[in-house]
């Protein structure tokens, strides 16, 4: 009896668990082994290739840096405004990370998207085109902003090795190939529900810009001419002759909603002038991060409000103001403007001054509210705001139903920019300031503003037109660096506009943290040593 009991207990004791007891399943995430199989999987992956530029963190930091560096916009981050940043700067690192994320995802897409995936030929072409365009775009920005990062054309696999720097030429050249490839694969237009995807025109426009940044003007002009010849794009023109017609024709390029004026409507997002937009939305609410930001809920779709709202509306940080000492004088004073405007209508679209209505639309409650001195963070020292990026979406300051994220798309490439780039490239390629096609292109932009056409171009005229037309669109600072590098501007010219500008500021430093992670293989850009 005793032996039986002991045997029973010993047997019970020895009884372990079944073999699969230690197998558990992660119910929170998809596992890689079951992914990359169907067309739907690749559509999902492709959409995430678009994301890095639009993601809240990236956009917010991009806007913060780019606005702060711009000489026409003042930013409360006075350090960055004064170009006081170094390789440890978190924003610079974050944007680098976002661009590399785009590179990684497009690389992964192009590696995994093999012939075996069941998808129609037409869609296969456009999907490949989108991926190549995006990879080109990320590398284009890497080349312009960071000059010498590593060039990876496939996803990396061994985290224990580092990657060497590429030259800026190699990266520009790779981006060029991508844009060329993409322009052959992408459709000219997308259906309404797909707007936001890359198009042939976007690929060609970036191709042109890519050449322009390398001072290859003939090739740039050729690519940009192709965009013009697509006959897809046209400037958003005034449909009447009152002052709002002129202002809205331009301003609706920056508003989230179409602008109505006396029965006429000026289309905003994805209008005829739009070539490539970062598509923001207020629909996806990330939720407030802390009480500090409660009134301005962040969203995955947009980070815009967080970083450049009126302080009174948002209470946030990263507020901007418009430079009000030098830049106002740059605006032309047409003697006989069709709408009788005293200044170039783009002035009224760029500036909002104390006493101005917050909204030009008389039916909008904000029409009766005026911009006040206290609406701006006085630490920036300017009394004027940037209307172009602050078009009020809230109907009142305290409207509880207003969306607290800004759904306004960021226009990354506009047809006006293409026309101006073409004018510059054509003039500089032919060395002929009277080139007819260049004049036509640039005068289209002036015509939309109701300004007299020019009969002959000049370096100053081209610089001026880009300055006014593209003010505060993150293009200006890189135009200055480009002109400094290709000889159109001297160091002193640039320093007049950005007093602390030094030769190293033509690009960002490579992030120190990233250099440390490459085991000595990747080096800092010598300009930043």
């Amino acid at each position, binding site marked *: 009896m*005793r032996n039986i009991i002991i045997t029973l*207990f010993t047997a019970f*004791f*020895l*009884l372990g668990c079944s073999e699969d007891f*230690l197998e*558990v399943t*992660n*119910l*929170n*995430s*998809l*596992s890689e082994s079951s*992914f990359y199989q169907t067309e739907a*999987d690749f559509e*999902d992956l*492709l*959409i*995430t290739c678009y*994301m890095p530029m639009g*993601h809240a963190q990236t956009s917010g930091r991009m806007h913060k840096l780019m606005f702060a560096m711009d000489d026409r916009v003042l930013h409360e981050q*006075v350090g960055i405004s004064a170009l006081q940043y170094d390789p*440890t700067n978190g924003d610079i690192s974050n944007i680098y*990370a976002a661009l*590399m994320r785009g590179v*990684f*995802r497009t690389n992964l897409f192009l590696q995994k998207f093999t012939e075996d995936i069941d998808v129609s030929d037409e869609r296969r072409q456009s999907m490949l085109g989108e991926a190549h365009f995006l990879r080109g775009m990320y590398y284009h920005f890497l080349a312009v902003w960071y000059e010498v990062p590593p060039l*990876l054309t496939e996803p990396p696999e061994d985290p224990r090795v580092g990657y060497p720097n590429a030259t800026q030429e190699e990266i520009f050249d790779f981006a060029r190939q991508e844009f060329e490839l993409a322009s052959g694969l992408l459709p000219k237009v997308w259906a309404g*529900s797909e*707007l*936001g*995807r890359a198009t042939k025109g976007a690929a060609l426009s970036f191709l042109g810009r890519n050449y322009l940044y390398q001072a290859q003007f003939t090739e740039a002009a050729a690519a940009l001419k192709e965009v013009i010849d697509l006959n897809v794009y046209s400037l958003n023109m005034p449909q009447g002759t009152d002052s709002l017609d002129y202002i809205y024709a331009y301003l609706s390029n920056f508003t989230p909603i179409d602008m109505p004026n006396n029965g006429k409507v000026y289309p905003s997002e994805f209008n005829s002038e739009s070539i490539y937009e970062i*598509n923001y*939305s207020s*629909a*996806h609410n990330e*939720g*407030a991060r*802390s*009480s*500090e930001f*409660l*009134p301005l*809920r962040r969203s*995955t779709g947009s980070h815009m409000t967080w970083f450049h709202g009126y*302080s009174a509306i948002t*209470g946030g*940080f990263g507020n901007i103001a418009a430079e009000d000492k030098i830049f106002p004088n740059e605006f032309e004073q047409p003697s006989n403007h069709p709408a009788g405007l005293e200044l170039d209508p783009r002035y009224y679209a760029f500036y909002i001054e104390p006493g101005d209505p917050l909204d030009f639309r008389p039916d909008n409650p904000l029409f009766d509210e005026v911009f006040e001195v206290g609406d701006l*963070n*006085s*630490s920036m020292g300017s009394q004027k705001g940037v209307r172009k990026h602050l078009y009020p979406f809230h109907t009142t300051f305290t*409207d*509880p*139903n207003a969306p607290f994220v800004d*759904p306004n798309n960021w226009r990354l490439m506009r047809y006006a920019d293409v026309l101006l780039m073409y004018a510059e490239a054509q003039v500089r390629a032919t060395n002929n300031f009277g080139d007819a096609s260049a004049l036509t292109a640039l005068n289209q932009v002036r015509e939309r503003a109701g300004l007299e056409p020019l009969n002959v171009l000049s370096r100053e005229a081209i610089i001026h037109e880009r300055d006014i037309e593209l003010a505060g669109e993150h293009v200006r600072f890189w135009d200055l660096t480009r002109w400094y590098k290709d000889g159109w501007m001297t160091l002193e010219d640039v320093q007049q506009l950005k*007093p*602390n500008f030094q030769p190293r500021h033509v690009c960002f430093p490579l992030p*120190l943290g*990233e250099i440390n*992670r490459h085991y000595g293989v990747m080096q800092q850009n010598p300009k930043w040593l």
Partner: protein
Amino acid sequence: MKPSFIRLVALLLFPPLFGYTQIDVSGKVTDATTGEPLIGVNVLVKGSSTGTITDYDGVYELNVPSKESILTFTYIGYEPTEMVVGSQKTIDITLATQAETIEEVVVIGYGTQKKQNVTGAVSLVSAEDLKEANATSTALALQGRTPGVNISSTSGSPGSSPSIRVRGVGSINNSAQPIVVIDGIISSIGALNNLNPQDIESVSVLKDAASAAIYGARSSNGVILVKTKTGEEGRLSVQYNNLFGVSTLPRRQDIMNADEYRDFYEKVYEEHNATYPNDQRVFPAAYTDAVWTENGQTDTDWQNLITNDLALKQNHYLSLNGGNEKSTYMISLNYVTEDGILKTSYQDLYNVRINSEHKIGKRIRIGENLAFTVKNGRREANTPYLTAAVTSPLLPVFNEDAKGGYQGPDPVFTGINDRTNPVAELELNERFFNENNIFGNLYGEIDLLPGLTFRTVLGVNYFNRRTTNWSPRYELVQRSNPTATLSESDNYARRWQFDKILRYNREFGSHSFGLMAGHTAEKDIGNSITATASDFRWESLQTIGGGNPELITSAQGIGERTGESYFGRVNYEYANKYLFVGTIRRDGSSRFGPNNRYGTFPSFSVGWKISEDLFNGPRYGWMDMLKLRFGYGFNGNEPDRNFLYETFISTYPEHVYTLGQTDRAVFGAAPFYTFGSPELRWESSEMINYGIDFTGFNGKVEFYAEYYVKNQNDLITNLPLQLVYGLSGDAQPPLVNLGDIQNSGFEFSLSYRNYENPVKFMVAANLTTVRNTVEFLPSNRIFNSDGTNLAVEGHSIGSYFGYVAERILQESDFELDGNGNPIQNEDGSFNPLVPYQTDFMSPGDIKFKDLNNDGKVNATDQTIIGKVIPDFTYGFTFDVRYKSFDLNLLLQGVQNIDIYNRYRSRAGLASGNETSKDENKLRVVQDYWTPENPVTNQTRIGLGDFNDNDRISTWWIEDASFLRVRNLQIGYSLPGNILDRIGINALRIFIGGENLLTFTDYSGYDPEISSTSAFGAIDDGTYPVPRFYQGGLSVSF
């Protein structure tokens, strides 16, 4: 013969009438050596449930059935004694203290061991020690009492969880907290937090490999073993304790008032406009236009307003203890309500414990230890002490006209200062939590053969935590909340653990064997759901469904872990002199990939009672015991996340992009949410332990010393993936086993007790040293998320990394003109003669050291500037009793540890911050640098910190060594003659305090702040540990 026959018949027929001739017996029980009366001795009629306990004078009275009855006298720590009643009416008994053979027993993993024969490094805390501590938190009750164990509060918030470090820090990414095993059930520090110290019988801290390795893969940070009280055979005894107390802010920061604020900024604007002629700033009118309220000019003391002057605390504890030889029980009820010193924060705790054991026949015992805990409270997300310092004193607190009733930052009142109203934030945003926890076990034990016992334990832990964060719509001007929001989260976790253990103990002559073998399986399941809603139409409808349906968001996380282990131990003792213990555990965990799912952790330890062999002559009569110990073994540390071995795809909400004019959301999926690490395995530590134990002078002196070296290998570290891997924000980089850390140190403990004189006292002191070094870390530097602390080879983990601040720059550090004034360029900058720091460095800024002598101060000039692991920690206890009075004092000290006082780098920096919000500051900034006031430790004043003076540097790193009066208590026990009259057994009243006095050079609120990660302590205005005054009584019936 006849009478006795009749009597026998009568006895059979009418037993009650004739059988029990009741006899009254009384007597006094005293200590055999001291002659002191013993209070609370169990006196029981053997074989019955009749019994009593001795009173304050050691006296008992009892009815016994017959002269043949046997009385048993039992008392903890004394030899049980039996006595036949016979014809005596008065039976006085002396009880002898227990002889060595059955002396104090130590709880070790899956069993017990004689204290004298312990060979590992085990720190013990008894119920008696905990009673003196009178703390309501078990972890804090252990503070300062256990060498090798450093316990510090992370926050003074009621119910906050402390940080516990056993023998240094041995992990970078993983938890460095020890595991907590309560009545055999493996758990974490959180469980310790729910445990009432008064329910505890003993705590053992297993510190070295040899004692902890029986817990294998989770033991390398040490193991805290807790045994709760069990019922005792005998009469029902009732214990009631209460405590009332008040907490106060132990220390205030000296912050400028409204007048000083205005004067300061007047100077700041003057100075700024003089220095930067191109950047004229207007001194805000609000600072000079006195804002008149009914009571005069607004001068708000925010620090004062967010603090409760007297935060109340009450603790009530009731326990019932008793049983007979078949069943024993212990039931306790505990209620603690505690207000925080930060306004609105509080916690209520309800705790019920039921421990019982039942004997079935002679061989089977079954029982349970179950605790049910409920906690409710309100806790702030962020400690607002820094906000309180920087908010303008010109901001009024209230505004009856504003929704919510508070005034927010408004240029009219506060100019540029737009810091929020911290009182409004505290009062308006309601953050409640509710926690329910069932924790305990059911066990059965059967004696199979003499010495062979089988035990099985089923442990359960059910945990539910619910938090509700409600922010109503309110108007605070620049900090308004235009829409109400509600966030509800529900965390649910359950765990079971099933142990089967066989034990065999046998003695053959001088040989004594012990064998233990066991198997355990366990499973943890966690599930958390969070939902948020906003835009409430009806604010009285505070449920998720009350929000705008389109704005409701939710998220869920599910976790699961399973584990299976085999373990065993061999004890061998020869002649009670030569001791050996060997253990082994094989662990399996679902957290690892199929290739590395199992790990084996062996250990052994040996002891030699050298006193028995070498010092046992009459000359050594003063020496009770001298023992040498040595131990060696391996322990593991498991990562605290699941599913690390597999690569996962990241999905919503990280990946969503919109297409189309109507903002059509398109969801995406991308690599990597986790970057799988299929080869990941346990962190493994190898430890050597040397120990010496001494007791002498009849147990009056005890001394322990330990030296250990602990090498933590295969550290689980984040492989710092290059950005070319495209990880998204929420993604987790792969973990790899890379890096070694060494901890080594000495631990000493010395105590002296003398209970022979009328003045009975005990003094004890302990000292712990830790030397921590990152020995090997090929990936070079691993930073914390703030980028302020790192792990780097050759330094202790979590060292501060930053600049070396030398002094304040003077005018002579810049190019001077003919008049001896510094030359100022058009943009306001100066031309430094010292290494370049920033474009706008100027006299009065901090001079940082150019470490590499390259002529400029930049990121490459950062170095190690402080450490977060103290050189040594120490504790001192003094316990004295005289007649009815007793006094207990506990001091605790920490030496040579640094804190990054980031609070001071913001509120104590005269030059502004980058966004120049005219923040209020500490009074010390009034001594700011000027050419006329060059000898100061304050910078210049300014509207922008252009020199980045607030960067992490030695300027802001402070020595946070401290010596603290942790606990002081004076008690008075009512004399027996009074107690007799009111019919109670013992009554003690006490007054005392915790944290009464702190000696430190640290300038912040509290030098004790600590971090829950291995990485350092940053003081952003931490919730300080309150000073606590208390009084109460304990009574037993």
